[in-house]
C-alpha cells in the first residue's frame, strides 16, 4: 500500500538535505539558508504531534502486552511486547489483520477499543498539523523557491533576469520568447507570478515570488549564475528598479542592465552605478513627438524595427501640425515636453497641474489656466496627466471647443485604450508600449541602437525610401536583424578580397542561388573603426574587420553565412566562378575555371 503518510514523511524529512546540497552552486551566501528556513519551521512545529503519536503508541502497546489473555486451551497467556506492537501497528494504520496470536479476552478487547480511539485522535492530530503546515505561507514559499532554483539549474542556456511583471514586462517577455531568448521573472505579487505560468511561453519560464529589493532574492533568481546575461528592471516602482540596478552593478558589474525610471532624479541615480540603459517612457514621449514632427517615415521605421518579431509594418502617421501647442500635465512632464517641442521650433503653452496639496485631490488641472491657454486656436493639445480620466476629459473638452486641433494623449492604463479611441485621440502614447520598444531596441542587436540613433537626423525622403527597400526585400513583416563581422574568423571565405580592399557590398549581398539577384536583406549600417555609414549602398567598399547590421528574411541569413564561410559559394557569389568543390576536380580544372557572365 502506498501510504500517504510515508510520502509526506519523505517529502518533509528527506528532501531538505538534497536541496541544501544542490543550492550550494549559488555563489553568494544566505540563499540556501532561506530555502532551509521553511523546512526547519515545519520540523519544529511537528515536534509536539510526533511526541503525542509516540506516547500514544507506547501506552497502547504497553497496555496490550500487560492485559490478561488466554491461549486456545484457556491457559493465561500474555501477548508479549512484539506481538502487541505488531497488532497496534496494523490497527492504528487501519489495516486490521485480526486478533493474534489467540482470540482476545474481554479485558484485551476493552484495552484495544480504548487504544483504537486514542490512536485515531493521535493520527488525526498529527496529519491535521502536517496539512496545516503544508498550507503555511513560509513553507510553501520555501518549496516554491527550491522548485525555482532547480529549474534554473537545469536551464542550460543564457538567460535574462526580468524584474517586475507588469504590462511593459509582459510585452517584453512575449517578444523575448518569440526571439527564442530565455528569461526568468521575479515579482512581488503572487497573482502576477501565477500569470507567468498561465502565459504559456514556448520555453519553460521560471518565476520567483519575492521582494525585488531583497538582494538574496535577486541572487537566487539569477545574479548568482554565470549564465545570467543581463537584468531588465521594469517594476512599476522606480525605486525598486534603482535598487536592482545598484545591486547588479555592485555584485555583477559585467552584466548589462536595462532599467525603467519615471523621473529625471532616479535616472541620474541609476547612471551613478555603472552604465545602465535607463528607459524613461515620459522622457521618450517627447522624443517620439520630435521624431514624428520631423519625419513620419522615420518614426514608422523606428517603431517597426523595434517592435515584436514578425510584427506587420505599422501605418505611417500623418504629419503633425506646426503652430501653437498646448501641453497639460504635471509640472515635470510639462517642462520636458515643452522643451522638446520648443527645440523643434514650435510655440508651446504649458498648463501645469495644481500641486496636490492637503485636502485637494491629486492631478487637478488648473481650470483657470486652461481657460486662458486659448485652446480654441491651438494647433494641437497634449494631455499628459498621469490620470486617464483627466486626460479623457481634456481631450473631450478640447474637441468640443476646437474640432481641428490635433489630439495627443498619454494612455496610462492600457485597458483604457478603447476609451481613447472612442473619444478620437489622434496620437495616443501607452507608456508600456514605449518601454517595450525601447527595451527591444537595446536587446535585439548591439548595432541596432547605433542605427536608430542616426535615423532622426535623416530627412523624411530617406526614411520612406528605407522603408520601401525593406518592404521590397523582406515583406511587410518585421525583418530579422543580424550582425555580421567581416573578420578572418567569421568570414574566412572572403578574407582575400577583403584584405585587397576590392570587395563591394553589392557583391556580398548577391544570392548564392542566382547571383543576378540579391538576397532578401538590406544592410542597415556599416561600422568601421568607430565611424559608421548609414544604409550603405551596393558600391560601398568593404574592408577587413568591418561590421554590418543586416535586416532581412531568415533565408537570407543562411545564404549570407554560406557566402562568408564556404569558398565555393563565395567564388560564385563574388566573382561568378564555378569552382569544383572536390579536391580532385579542383586539381584537374586548375587554370581554366569557367567564368560566367561576370559583373553585369
Amino acid at each position, binding site marked *: 500500500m502506498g501510504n500517504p503518510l510515508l510520502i509526506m514523511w519523505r517529502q518533509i524529512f528527506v528532501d531538505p538535505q538534497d536541496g541544501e546540497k544542490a543550492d550550494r552552486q549559488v555563489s553568494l551566501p544566505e540563499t540556501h539558508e532561506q530555502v532551509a528556513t521553511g523546512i526547519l519551521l515545519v520540523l*519544529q512545529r511537528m*515536534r509536539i504531534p*510526533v511526541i503525542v503519536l509516540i506516547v500514544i503508541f507506547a501506552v497502547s*502497546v504497553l497496555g496490550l502486552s500487560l492485559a490478561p489473555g488466554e491461549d486456545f486451551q484457556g491457559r493465561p497467556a500474555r501477548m508479549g511486547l*512484539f506481538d502487541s506492537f505488531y497488532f497496534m501497528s496494523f490497527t492504528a494504520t487501519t489495516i486490521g489483520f485480526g486478533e493474534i496470536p489467540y482470540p482476545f479476552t474481554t479485558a484485551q478487547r476493552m484495552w484495544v477499543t480504548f487504544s483504537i480511539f486514542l490512536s485515531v485522535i493521535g493520527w488525526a492530530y498529527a496529519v491535521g498539523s502536517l496539512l496545516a503546515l503544508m498550507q503555511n505561507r513560509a513553507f510553501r514559499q520555501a518549496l516554491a523557491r527550491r522548485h525555482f532554483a532547480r529549474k534554473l539549474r537545469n536551464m542550460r542556456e543564457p538567460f535574462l533576469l526580468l524584474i517586475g511583471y507588469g504590462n511593459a514586462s509582459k510585452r517584453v517577455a512575449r517578444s523575448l520568447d518569440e526571439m527564442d531568448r530565455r528569461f526568468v521573472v521575479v515579482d512581488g505579487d503572487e497573482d502576477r507570478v501565477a500569470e507567468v505560468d498561465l502565459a504559456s511561453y514556448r520555453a519553460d519560464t521560471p518565476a520567483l515570488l519575492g521582494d525585488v529589493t531583497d538582494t538574496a532574492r535577486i541572487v537566487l533568481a539569477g545574479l548568482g549564475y554565470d549564465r545570467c546575461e543581463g537584468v531588465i528592471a521594469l517594476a512599476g516602482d522606480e525605486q525598486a528598479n534603482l535598487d536592482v540596478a545598484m545591486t547588479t552593478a555592485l555584485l555583477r558589474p559585467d552584466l548589462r542592465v536595462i532599467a525603467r525610471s519615471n523621473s529625471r532624479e532616479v535616472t541620474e541615480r541609476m547612471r551613478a552605478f555603472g552604465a545602465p540603459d535607463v528607459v524613461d517612457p515620459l522622457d521618450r514621449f517627447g522624443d517620439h513627438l520630435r521624431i514624428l514632427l520631423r519625419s513620419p517615415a522615420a518614426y514608422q521605421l523606428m517603431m517597426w524595427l523595434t517592435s515584436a518579431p514578425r510584427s506587420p509594418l505599422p501605418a505611417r502617421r500623418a504629419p503633425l501640425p506646426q503652430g501653437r501647442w498646448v501641453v497639460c500635465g504635471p509640472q515635470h512632464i510639462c517642462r520636458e515636453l515643452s522643451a522638446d517641442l520648443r527645440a523643434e521650433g514650435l510655440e508651446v503653452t504649458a498648463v501645469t497641474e495644481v500641486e496636490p496639496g492637503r485636502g485637494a485631490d491629486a492631478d487637478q488641472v488648473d481650470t483657470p489656466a486652461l481657460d486662458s491657454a486659448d485652446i480654441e486656436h491651438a494647433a494641437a493639445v497634449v494631455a499628459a496627466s498621469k490620470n486617464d480620466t483627466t486626460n479623457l476629459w481634456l481631450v473631450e473638452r478640447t474637441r468640443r471647443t476646437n474640432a481641428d486641433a490635433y489630439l495627443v494623449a498619454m494612455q496610462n492604463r492600457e485597458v483604457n485604450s478603447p476609451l481613447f479611441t472612442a473619444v478620437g485621440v489622434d496620437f495616443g502614447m501607452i507608456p508600456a508600449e514605449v518601454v517595450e520598444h525601447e527595451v527591444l531596441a537595446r536587446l535585439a542587436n548591439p548595432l541596432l541602437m547605433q542605427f536608430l540613433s542616426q535615423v532622426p537626423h535623416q530627412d523624411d525622403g530617406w526614411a520612406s525610401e528605407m522603408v520601401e527597400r525593406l518592404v521590397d526585400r523582406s515583406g511587410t513583416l518585421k525583418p530579422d536583424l543580424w550582425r555580421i563581422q567581416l573578420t578572418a574568423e567569421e568570414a574566412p571565405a572572403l578574407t582575400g578580397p577583403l584584405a585587397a580592399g576590392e570587395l563591394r557590398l553589392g557583391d556580398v549581398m548577391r544570392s548564392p542561388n542566382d547571383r543576378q539577384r540579391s538576397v532578401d536583406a538590406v544592410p542597415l549600417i556599416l561600422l568601421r573603426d568607430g565611424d559608421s555609414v548609414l544604409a550603405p549602398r551596393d558600391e560601398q567598399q568593404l574592408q577587413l574587420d568591418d561590421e554590418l547590421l543586416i535586416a532581412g528574411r531568415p533565408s537570407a541569413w543562411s545564404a549570407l553565412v554560406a557566402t562568408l564561410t564556404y569558398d565555393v559559394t563565395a567564388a560564385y557569389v563574388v566573382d561568378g566562378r564555378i569552382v569544383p568543390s572536390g579536391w580532385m576536380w579542383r586539381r584537374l580544372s586548375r587554370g581554366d575555371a569557367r567564368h560566367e557572365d561576370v559583373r553585369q
Partner: protein
Amino acid sequence: MNLEKVVFGFFVLLAATLNFGFFLGDPADSAVHNVYELFAAVVVNLIAIALKLGDRTQIGAVQLATSLVASLQLITAALVWAYATGGGDELTPETTASVVSLSGGALFANIVSVVLLVSETISFQRR
C-alpha cells in the same frame, strides 16, 4: 527557569538512565534484564529525537545525531529480542548477551548526549 529546557533535560537524562538500568547486570543472564525497561528506553529515546527536530544550532544537530544513534541501537536490540522469542522460546544466554551489548552501545551514545547537555548548561552559565 525555561520549561523547554526542563522537559528536554528530563527526557535526555531519562533515556540514559533507563538505558543504563537495562544494561546493568550479567550480560548473559536474561533474568537481570527486564524487557519492559528496554521498551521504555526505546520510547523515551524516540521522544528525545522528536524534541530535537528542527533545532538549527550546532549543539542541537549533534544532540539529534546521538539520539538517532541510540535509538538505532536500541531498536536493533529490541528486534533481536523479538526475533529470538518469536516462537515462544526462552532467551538463550548468547542472544541475551547480544541484546545487552547492543543496548550498551546505545548507552554510550546516551552518555555523550548527557555530556553535551551538561557542557551546554555550564557554558551557558559562564556567560
